[in-house]
């Protein structure tokens, strides 16, 4: 029969100000809910249990559990202390009543404090005298009226353990995030410890050990009996020796197996611990390689950009680009016009000078051959102006001669009138500007293309920089230890690989060792069978029967333990998934599958997988907590006796949403005979009854036995704060 908490009362305990009568909660089987807003007394309520079981309270300032001895003044109601006169005694107590099918028990813990001086501080221990009382326990037959004190300390302890067994208290009492630690899936032994604690599987271990001991002793007794019999043959003794040798080998192998299993556990823990870090380290390595590649690209493009910028100046004066000539299109035509004007004026002036002494003039175009050239042309009988023959005495030859002989021509003659001849000057300008002039039309296009190239390079630089930043951001989420430390990445990957390889080795060793043990055990059984046939006729039959039954029971116990364990694993998986589906059914996201497997060591491995069997990671905090709760509920469900103790949870699903909370309430009542849930997520200050929509749904739900509402009077000073409780169901 499960233990059920019937009542819990507080007297001047934190903000539960006043007598027990004003601060009593009555509870029943099933789901019991205490709704309170922040500061409404949920954690204080929970602290009452910590005091009863552990003599501790959770200090809300430091979030640490502290011994009650040093906290007495702090936990006594401020309002009671404030109202007390000097030398007044204030009672501070927590009392709890619970029952099983036969008795009802009452447990009370408390102290008195006395105000030593006026204006005493409300928290300073030196201003108060504290008088602790011992544990008070009383019990009564459930059918009777009166409680009787229990004075025996062992009996008192047994009664307290009956409420919740010490090894189960961590699974029965938890606050918020503590749930996540109940079963830590990253710790290989955490799940197995919960299974061993919450199920009866340990009983099978215990039975296997004792039946083994009984069988060994029975064999020893029989052998001693046979050894003292002279009729025992040499071959019997030899067989017995052989069996003993095998037995020794079996013991040695069993020890080896233990060490392999130890190595397996240690390395499994290390692998589990490093798994996510290794995944991160490997991902980091991928990021690092990508970053390296991107940084190289960035360097290359930056160099190309720098080269482009450096060459911008050159492009002004480089004939291939001729940027300096940009905008000079009109200057070229101006130049040509001016040059033509110049030549025209010059020619006219030249003609005017020549006409001063003769009416004949050989008007030649500007830049006509000089005297020396004319002489050469005459001698070679060829006109270089028109590139034709000018044979002697022909008209062309005579024309060249007339030019040579024209007035003012000749080597020794100077034409003084053509001062300031700018022909060469203009020629040089033309020559120098020739390549630029040809490019002027293409300059705009060239600048445009260069600008485009520059823009393209800048865009590529920005793009790569963004990519690098993105990679760095993503990489920074992969925590592996010391941030940005490449040595850590390599170390973790090496450590993980090492642990994984040791784990595989231990796994192989375990399998081999188990095979050897199986073979040795089989041979020992054959030896035993042969020995039973070889025993002397007058061996006492009772010894033989005794050994026979003991050995059969031992073997049956060994087989049963394996059978029960294997069945339990498959049932555990079935139950866990059932609970998990129900817990998350009001959530929009579908969850994964909880997978349980027996490992070579003979314990359980847990995985969270998708439908294809691939491991799923990165589930939200809400899903993680639901996984723990589902597995916890499954372990309790597979236990043939269920769970015989109440559950007390303070803010088990705070901030996880109404869907999870609804699923949790529905599922809790299927597993725990009684649950007391302290919660603020059903509170709505705007609502008439202070319950939100889900709170009102639960109010109508038949599986919810009681609902209490804790309230604090509005606008109270700190020293006047007290919790007023109201039973609304």
């Amino acid at each position, binding site marked *: 029969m499960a233990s059920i908490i019937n009542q819990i009362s507080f007297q001047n305990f934190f903000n539960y100000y006043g007598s027990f009568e004003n601060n009593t909660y009555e509870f029943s089987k099933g789901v019991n809910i205490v709704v309170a807003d922040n500061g409404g007394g949920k954690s204080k309520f929970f602290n009452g249990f910590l005091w009863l079981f552990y003599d501790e309270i959770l200090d809300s300032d430091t979030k640490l559990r502290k011994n009650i001895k040093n906290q007495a003044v702090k936990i006594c109601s401020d309002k009671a202390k404030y109202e007390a006169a000097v030398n007044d005694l204030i009672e501070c107590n927590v009392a709890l009543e619970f029952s099983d099918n036969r008795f009802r028990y009452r447990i009370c813990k408390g102290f008195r404090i006395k105000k030593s001086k006026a204006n005493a501080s409300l928290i300073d221990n030196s201003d108060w005298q504290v008088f602790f009382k011992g544990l008070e326990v009383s019990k009564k037959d459930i059918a009777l009226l009166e409680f009787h004190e229990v004075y025996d300390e062992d009996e008192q302890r047994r009664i307290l353990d009956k409420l919740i067994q010490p090894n189960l208290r961590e699974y029965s009492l938890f606050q918020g995030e503590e749930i996540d630690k109940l079963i830590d899936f990253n710790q290989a032994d955490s799940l197995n410890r919960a299974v061993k604690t919450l199920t009866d599987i340990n009983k*099978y271990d215990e039975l296997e050990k*004792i039946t083994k*001991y009984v069988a060994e002793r*029975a064999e020893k007794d029989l052998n001693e009996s046979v050894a003292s019999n002279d009729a025992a043959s040499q071959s019997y003794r030899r067989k017995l020796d052989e069996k003993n040798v095998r037995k020794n080998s079996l013991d040695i192998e069993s020890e080896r197996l233990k060490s392999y299993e130890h190595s397996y556990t240690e390395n499994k823990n290390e692998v589990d611990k490093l798994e996510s870090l290794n995944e991160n380290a490997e991902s980091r390595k991928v990021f690092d390689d990508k970053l390296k590649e991107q940084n190289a690209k960035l360097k290359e493009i930056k160099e190309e950009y720098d080269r482009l910028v450096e060459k911008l100046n050159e492009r002004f004066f480089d004939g291939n680009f001729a940027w300096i000539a940009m905008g000079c299109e009109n200057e070229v035509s101006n130049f040509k016009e001016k040059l033509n004007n110049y030549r025209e004026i010059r020619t006219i002036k030249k003609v005017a000078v020549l006409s001063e002494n003769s009416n004949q003039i050989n008007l030649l175009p500007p830049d006509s051959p000089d005297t020396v050239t004319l002489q050469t042309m005459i001698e070679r009988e060829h006109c270089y102006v028109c590139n034709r023959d000018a044979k002697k005495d022909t008209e062309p030859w005579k024309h060249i001669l007339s030019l040579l002989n024209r007035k003012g021509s000749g080597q020794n003659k100077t034409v003084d009138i053509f001062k300031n001849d700018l022909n060469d000057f203009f020629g040089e300008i033309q020559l120098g500007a020739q390549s630029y002039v040809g490019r002027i039309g293409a300059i705009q296009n060239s600048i445009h293309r260069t600008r485009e190239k520059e823009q393209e390079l800048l865009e590529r630089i920005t793009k790569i920089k963004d990519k690098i930043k993105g990679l760095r951001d993503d990489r920074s989420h992969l925590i592996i230890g010391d941030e940005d430390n490449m040595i850590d990445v390599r170390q973790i990957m090496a450590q993980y690989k090492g642990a994984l390889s040791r784990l595989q080795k231990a796994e192989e060793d375990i399998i081999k060792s188990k095979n050897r043990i199986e073979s040795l055990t089989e041979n020992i059984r054959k030896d035993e069978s042969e020995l039973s046939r070889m025993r002397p006729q007058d061996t006492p039959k*009772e010894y033989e029967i*005794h050994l026979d039954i003991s050995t059969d*029971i031992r073997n049956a116990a060994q087989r*049963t333990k394996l059978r029960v364990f294997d069945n339990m694993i498959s049932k555990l998986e079935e139950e866990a998934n059932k609970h998990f589906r129900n817990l998350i059914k009001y959530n929009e996201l579908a969850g994964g599958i909880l997978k349980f497997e027996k490992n070579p060591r003979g314990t359980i491995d847990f995985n969270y997988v998708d439908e294809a069997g691939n491991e799923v990671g990165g589930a939200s905090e809400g899903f993680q907590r639901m996984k723990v709760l589902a597995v916890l509920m499954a372990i309790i469900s597979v236990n043939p006796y269920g769970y015989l103790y109440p559950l007390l949870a303070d803010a088990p699903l705070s901030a996880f949403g109404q869907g999870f909370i609804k699923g949790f309430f529905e599922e809790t009542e299927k597993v725990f005979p009684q649950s007391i849930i302290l919660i603020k997520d059903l509170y709505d200050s705007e609502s008439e009854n202070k319950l939100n929509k889900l709170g009102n749904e639960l109010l109508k739900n038949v599986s919810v036995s009681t609902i209490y509402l804790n309230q604090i009077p509005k606008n109270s000073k700190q020293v006047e704060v007290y919790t007023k409780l109201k039973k609304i169901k």
Partner: protein
Amino acid sequence: MIDKLLKEILRDKELSLKYNINEDMIKKAKLSPPYENKVIEYLAVIIRAKMVEVHGDVTVYNKVKNLIK
């Protein structure tokens, strides 16, 4: 509660076959006498002595040993 442990061991096929333990006997099996079968008695005494009365191994053995004499 502990009766279930007894029943579970008795359900072992090899054991039940050798000692002719049928489902009806398993259902009725309990830690306290009378016992329908010597093996059931052996097992019940071991379980009770070890897990209910919380005796040491030697005491458990002596209790079992006395069942044959």
